[in-house]
């Protein structure tokens, strides 16, 4: 990876900021929200892959960071029934 790539990536990132802002203005729809988070994910993957050089990193590092994220997903999914929907608890709590 060389300077040229870094600068190109930078402009893609800026463009993505623009896209997400536009999506925010576009309308209050689920699709827009999904789009906003998709652009965030895309931006993050660019920074991780090219700036942090994760693309060229050993596989176990990717697995290791990925398992951190997996733990968070488990936590989130496990808590949705209790914290978001509060099934089985007194309503309105």
């Amino acid at each position: 990876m060389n300077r040229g790539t870094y600068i190109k990536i930078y402009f893609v990132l800026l463009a993505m900021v623009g896209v997400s802002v536009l999506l925010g203005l576009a309308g209050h729809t689920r699709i827009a929200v999904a789009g906003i988070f998709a652009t965030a994910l895309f931006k993050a993957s660019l920074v991780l892959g090219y700036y942090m050089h994760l693309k060229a990193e050993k596989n176990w590092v990717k697995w290791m960071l990925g398992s951190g994220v997996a733990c968070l997903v488990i936590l989130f999914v496990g808590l949705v029934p209790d914290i978001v929907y509060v099934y089985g608890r007194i309503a309105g709590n």
Partner: protein
Amino acid sequence: MSTAATATLDRYESPSVATGRMGMWWVLASEIVIFGGAVVCYLLYRWHHPEWAESAVHTNELIGVINTVVLLTSSLTIVLAHDAAHHGDAARAKRLMGFTILLGLAFLCFKAYEYSHEVAAGFTPVKNLFWSFYYFLTGLHALHIVAGLIAIATVMRGVGRRENMQRVEYVGIYWHFVDVVWIFLFPLLYLAPKF
């Protein structure tokens, strides 16, 4: 004890990843679950409380955008500094790290401006849970910016003396991580909650 015998290069099985960088990856693994845990809590609550949208419209989207651009730019400068250090250009690496520090400070200034206006408008950390989360998440992030700035400044001093040039990469990785966190905080707190 013979130093010569034990300090030779092939003393160990071949390392899997450069030691310093690996240490940084472990630090980030610990950080991911800390920030991620906070974000998971926010998401769960946010989903449970649709009425937070009314609070969320009051965040300053313009400053949010500016700060996003500032941090992305600082990511570019630090990765270019890494590139310069890699090619042995200490002066250039130092200059680019200086830019990164300036950009980090700019981020903090914008943040401080934003906080002061919000507090003045009555949106304090105890106004309601949305604002508690807003200050908690951005405050934790700002602390990481401060830590990152200190780390970059320390490494920069070494680079001036052409010592430990490989460390530019390690602080860079940390700095990018702080940027990645912001990449998610920005839509979470500024853009998406408005729906």
